């Protein structure tokens, strides 16, 4: 009975994967953004200077002002096998920069990807850079699991107070997945610009390129509707995934939720909680009430 169920699951999994493979950069788990904030802004996490930068762009972590830790849970396309849990933590030192650790696991007992990373980032003047080492394990049912070491690099420059630029390279060392057809772990390069016309609004554009696949263009917007309440929405072209989300801050806690829709695969949900040591987390999430009033009245 169990065996039969397993076969059904395997079949289902293969079916979904075959759909996924036809959409650029959605195969496996490598192109995805981590955390509901990034998912809400059109799957774009490159330019968010929050603790989830550990998973999205190690360079952006350099701008973090308060230490913190968070957890998020994703379910993709309402499939059991497409769950992901991720943890993130960052320790800020004014002198030595930011040290971040991240752990995640995607999949089920049939197929899973586990990652653990340790990184360091620091801002110098207008720019920050970060470097990360990641242990990456892929396990498939009835096959021996494999693990790799991956290097990630990223940076975020605040060109002006309103325009930020960021870029990251995932799998700098181009780790090989197997010798068979020189299969490689995807190397993904991202670059993006964000524009902050006022203290309440953040517009994000990002381009993501997996060396072997078509590029994806992402647009996102985050708007502080009320004090410490954010609404987010965005989309990614090519894969035509649309998303939206909300977040709010209560004392030292931040709660975020995001939902996304793919025209064929359906719905993705993501929920997360962050705890911040100290009152506010980063520059972006620091509303200065006075200036807002000037702008909007």
């Amino acid at each position, binding site marked *: 009975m169990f065996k039969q169920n397993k076969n059904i699951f395997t079949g289902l999994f293969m079916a979904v994967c075959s759909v996924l493979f036809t959409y650029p950069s959605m195969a496996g788990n490598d192109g995805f953004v981590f955390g509901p904030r990034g998912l809400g802004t059109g799957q774009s996490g490159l330019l968010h200077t929050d603790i989830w930068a550990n998973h999205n762009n190690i360079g952006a972590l350099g701008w973090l002002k308060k230490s913190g830790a968070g957890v998020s849970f994703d379910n993709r396309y309402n499939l059991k096998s497409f769950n992901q849990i991720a943890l993130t933590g960052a320790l800020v030192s004014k002198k030595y920069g930011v040290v971040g650790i991240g752990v995640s696991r995607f999949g089920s007992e049939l197929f899973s990807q586990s990652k653990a990373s340790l990184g360091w980032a620091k801002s110098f003047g207008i720019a920050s850079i970060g470097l990360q080492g990641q242990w990456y394990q892929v396990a498939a049912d009835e096959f021996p699991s494999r693990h790799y070491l991956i290097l990630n690099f990223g940076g975020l420059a605040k060109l002006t107070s309103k325009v930020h630029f960021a870029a990251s390279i995932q799998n700098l060392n181009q780790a090989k997945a197997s010798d068979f057809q020189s299969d490689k772990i995807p190397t993904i390069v991202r670059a993006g610009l964000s524009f902050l*016309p*006022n203290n*309440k*609004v953040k*517009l994000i554009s990002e381009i993501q390129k997996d060396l072997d696949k078509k590029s994806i263009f992402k*647009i996102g*917007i985050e*708007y502080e509707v009320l004090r410490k309440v954010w609404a987010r*929405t965005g*989309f990614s*072209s090519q894969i*035509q995934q*649309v998303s939206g989300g909300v977040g709010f801050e209560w004392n030292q806690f931040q709660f975020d939720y995001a939902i996304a*829709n793919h*025209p*064929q695969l359906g719905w993705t949900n993501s929920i997360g909680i962050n705890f911040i040591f100290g009152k506010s987390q980063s520059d972006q999430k620091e509303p200065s009430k006075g200036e807002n009033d000037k*702008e*909007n009245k």
Partner: protein
Amino acid sequence: MKYWLFILILAFGLNTQKLFGQTYPRPEIQVEDFIENLFNLQSSDVNYEDLYEQLLLLYSNPLDLNDATPDELRNTYILSEKQVQDFLSHRQKTGKLLSIYELQSIPSFDQNTIYALLPFVIVNETPLNQDNKGLFKRIAIEPNNSLIVRGSRTLENQKGYSEAIPNASGDLPARYLGDPNKIFLRYRVSHVKDFSIGFTSEKDPGEQLRWNPATKQYGMDFWSAHFMVENKGLFKKAIVGDYQYMFGQGLVYSAGFAVGKGSEPVTTVRRSSIGIRPYTSVLEGLFFRGGAATLGFKNFEVTALVSSKSVDGNIQSASDTVDNDFIENFTSSINITGFHRTPTELANKQTNRETMLGTSVIYKEKTGKWELGALATSIQYQFPIIRRPSVYNQFDFNGSLNQNLSFTGQYNYQNFSFFGESAISKGGGHASVAGLVGSIGKGLDISMVARNYSRDYHAFYSNGFGEATRNVNERGIYWGLKYRAHPKWLVAAYYDRFVFPYLAFQADGPSWGDEYLSRITFSPSKTTSFFIQYRNESKLRNLASNQTPTDILVTTRRQNWVMQADVKANSWLSVRTRVQGSMWNQEKGNPQTYGLAISQDLNFDFGKVSISNRFSLFDTDDYNNRQYLYEKNVLYAFSIPALNGRGIRVYSLIQFSLNRKFDFWLRVARTIQRDQKTIGSGNEEIKGNSRTDLVVQIRYKI
């Protein structure tokens, strides 16, 4: 600067406010420019002439700022949500506007906005209905009236007017009964928020000018008239004659008018509940004929609609399978082109009676913060519509009775406006649309719209937001953004993703796609502007080069780009250069094809006489790359030819104002395609490589 100007005006205005307010010359509406800013010019399946007519209806009456409702303000498509809110609170705080110049004192009203708004608004100082003259007296002395007579024709001989020669099987091909002249008449006298009376009449080329009640010919082919009064006691509006009705977001009644996706990504996505409107157009299908009235009780507006009109269609007969003596009449479709040129078209004229009844209730909260409305309506046809069955149309309307029930609402919160409508039709089809427009920063506006229309939703007069022309079989979500980063720079963009769960036009299977557009406008001075625009649309379509019996859906991509420069050189000369092009391709299909058009305008304005000229050149690989170019035409007429092939198009338009009563227009347009032996197809075909159109128009203000 703005404030100094304002203070100066105020200083003058204290003494001469009447002079200022009344003598401000309302600029002429530059319709081409305005429409071009709203519409997505190169979209494939939109009838621009219809849209233009509808816009013109909307703008033929200027809006009185002291009296304008929020919906009317939004309906200009010029003001952002913040500007609407700011204007309303300004009017509430300081009372009625003394002059149009007062707009400058509202902080969010920048110069660009004010200039854009001026052609469409007035500040009326003499309150209406307060002069003691009776209605008929007021109508008799109203200066806002005009009679327009227009004649036009194609100078070359078209096949439809030639003698019919029997074809191989001995049948005579159909030819037009009438002459190639087009005649148009319109008279209208109206006063904003008081009354409107008018008639419109038209004879299309090829139609007969003949009195014969047997064939439903009454001189001109089409006649339309209305008499409307506003704000008379309990009656907010009452109309007899031809009218349109607009409710909610247009899922049931849209008054045929909708802008939708275009170069203006924010203000156009929201429909305004403007209710009853007189119909003065000549589109022979999008109106009701009968009577309607809106009554206002406190915050409630109750509307009753009655209409009965004859529509065109080929009535066929089928005998009942059980009882052979019982003959059933039906029609396979309703024809709304309004052409009655050939014997067949004439035989199908006004063959089916459409009867409409409807009622709506709208509750408007006192401060305008929110409103809710409901509509119930039914449309009955004398002869049922029974379509030829196919996979494609099996969820379309069949039968003689359709009923709709709809709920709508809107809510304003800070600088945001939320809106939505949800409707069902007889048989269970449903349609819903919801969205928001908002200002989230200085000069920064956004919009979002989500819609879901089921494949079996039926509403004959709907025109809600969407990708497809009808509100059926579609799900989608849209984002728009507009940012005036600087007084001289404007950025506008949208993204739309849509899914057609059932078969759609040229897609024999479930399909989906997305579309985006962005435009950057740079206006270094009041007299100079430049923009570039790019649009990309990808959707699944049947593979055109497919050789197999089964259609294959492939990603079909259409790209358009435009660059345009406008320069007003001095008081009498302005020039415009426009370059536009397109690319079209199908995945796994034939190689990409291209289209290009370049146009150069030279416009002279010498006060009483103005002359507009254009020379344009076009070169397209195929019909998928046809180029649409807006052209100036005589007042209230519109021209947007689809240029296809290789050739040259030129036109010249002269306007001459004889005195305050008489204006004349003359327009000649010519298309030359040297590599063609014939132009046009069917009865419109011309032997030769050129086509010339002539238009003459006179306006007389009585």
